[in-house]
């Protein structure tokens, strides 16, 4: 399992919005959840392999994109993480951008088990029709390359 850890000034980046308690209580209507994702967001998050995001700047850029997409007012309803297809090499299958506090991108090989919440997104993440899968505690939101969404 390959890991990219993001360095921060104080060694640990706090991301206050992602406690699971808040995620459970945050309510959004389907119309909100299903709104089309911006091209910038899709592009940035689906190119995690090719971009060198190993520094503070990269992490910040990613988080900014996520914040911008979901709006700062709705921090409570951010996904736990984002799963997408991994292009690192033959043996790698998917990777997770973990938004739940560990601030890492984890790459997984075929057959390698993913953390519980994320495993359910795996087979869809591998499918060519979806660019990203947003994983929430109670649902998956599939994002196509054009930014259109499907809730599952």
């Amino acid at each position, binding site marked *: 399992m390959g890991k990219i850890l993001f360095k921060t000034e104080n060694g640990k980046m706090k991301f206050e919005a992602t406690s699971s308690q808040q995620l459970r209580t945050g309510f959004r*209507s*389907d*119309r909100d959840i*299903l709104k089309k994702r911006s091209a910038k967001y899709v592009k940035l998050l689906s190119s995690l392999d090719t971009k060198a995001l190993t520094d503070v700047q990269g992490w910040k850029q990613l988080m900014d994109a996520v914040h911008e997409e979901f709006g700062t007012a709705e921090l409570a309803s951010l996904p736990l993480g984002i799963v997408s297809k991994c292009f690192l090499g033959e043996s790698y299958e998917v990777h997770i951008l973990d938004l739940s506090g560990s601030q890492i991108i984890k790459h997984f090989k075929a057959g390698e088990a993913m953390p519980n919440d994320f495993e359910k997104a795996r*087979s*869809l993440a591998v*499918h060519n*029709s*979806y660019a990203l899968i947003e994983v929430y505690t109670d649902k998956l939101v*599939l994002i196509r390359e054009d930014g*259109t969404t*499907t*809730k*599952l």
Partner: protein
Amino acid sequence: MPEVSYADLSAIESALSTINHNIATVNSNVGLLSDVQQAMAYKQDAMDAELKQLREAFEAFVALDAKHKNLQLAETRVGNLRQELQIKFGYYAEIRRMATGILQGVDTGVVGNETIKSTTEEVMIKAPGYWLAPALVALASWIRDDKSTCNKALTECLKRDDYKATLFFMLLTRRLGRNDASLAWLERYFIHQNPQDLDREFITVLEAVTTGVFHPAARAVMMKHVKNWLNQLTQGDQFINEQKTQWIKFFEASKPPLRGDKYPLLKQFAKNWVLLENSLRDVHAQEILHGHFNSIISSSYDFSASIKTKLDEILSQLVTNFDDEELPLQKQVRLNQLIIEKDGDKDAAQAVMDAEESIFKEKVDFLQMLTNAAFNPEAAGVTRVTQALAVSISQPWIIEAHDTFTAQSRNKFPQTVELVIDGFATSTKNGSDEKEQILKQENFYASELQKELGAIAFPTAGVVIGALIGLAGFIFGWIAGLISLAIGGVMIWNNINNVNKKKEQVRTTFEERKKKAKEVLRGCLAETVDYRKELATEDSKAENVRQLLISITPQDFSSVSQETARNII
């Protein structure tokens, strides 16, 4: 010296030999008995198998018989129900024919005032609850300028069925070119509507206005209302989610059964065949859906008949469609028709009926009305043009529902094919790993063979006895020793030979099993390759369906009022 007397033991000896003989007989009889027992066991096995066959055949027969009976019953019932409809509401049908006739008569001026007058008064008596009867009276009195009768009849007519009467006069006045009257009726009609609780025939108005049978000003009136309704209904999740759920159900209901025996080996040897089969059925729905939507879209292209014909069609639909009172009977007719269509399969008929059921709901919200028109235009009482329009207005949530249906089916794709062949369990992703799989299978058989061979014990006892006998002869001198040595040698050789033969037999059986299993494995892998290919090909058709749905725009489906429909969205 006492005399030694010899007892005669011959009698005892002969008795002993008789006993011996008898024991041998008993022994052989016991042997015979065990043979008989074995034969019995074989027979019982055969009987079991036959019984099982018989049971299966019987169950199949019972199921088939039930279907036949259902079919016959449904056929009888359809006849009876139609008869009942005819008895209870037959006169409604007559009034409908009469209304059509009067409309045509008025058009051509063939039917005289007197005829119309007498006919219409008669219908008032014969159909006391039907709205169309006073409508005909109002029409007739209007034709002969009898204002007071006309007003009375109109009031009665509106009392009986406000919506239909309003619609009737709205269309009628439009047909006769009374634009102001027609607009007034239309406005009245819309004011009475509640988008969350629309009357069933509202779709007919939508159809009338969108197909351009009204004065252009009517479009503005409709647009104003429909736009408001859509805004109102698509704000929250409830209404859209309801429609989405129905569409997903509709997509699921279009899953075809798998034709033929395309993957016989997988069916037999894949542990997860049910899942594999289900996924295949899921993806095969896509092509059917593509055809379905395509036919809806393309059938509307030949929409070139004149506005007047369309008005006639809508008006005649209005006067020929079922009345609410008739619905319960019409529902039963439909169910029995479906049972006939499904060859007596009641469950399948009920499933289709359930999917269609909301069509028969007397009151619907605007979005539901669109869904009804899109699912089954005939049942919803609309033409194919309005079906296409309904699909195009519902397009955003049809796409959402299709996306969900597709994602759900993709999420269920089995990642591996789990094979169990002759005790050898393995799993393959796409069948392309034949080399590894064959190697795995060889290893499996090698280890199984070792286990089996290990279970055949070395004949230690036989060898030891042979050796002892071989050596025993030397007690009596070397010639006897040589003879006994030969005997002992033969015994040892025999024992070892027997074991070797057994081992050889096991090896041969294993070779045979391995050969067959290898063929099966190769076949399964080949079928897996085909399966994955078919699954991917059919699954990719989902994207075509999506593209097709995205390409649907409302302006394609209304010949005259293109901008109206576009503005609705």
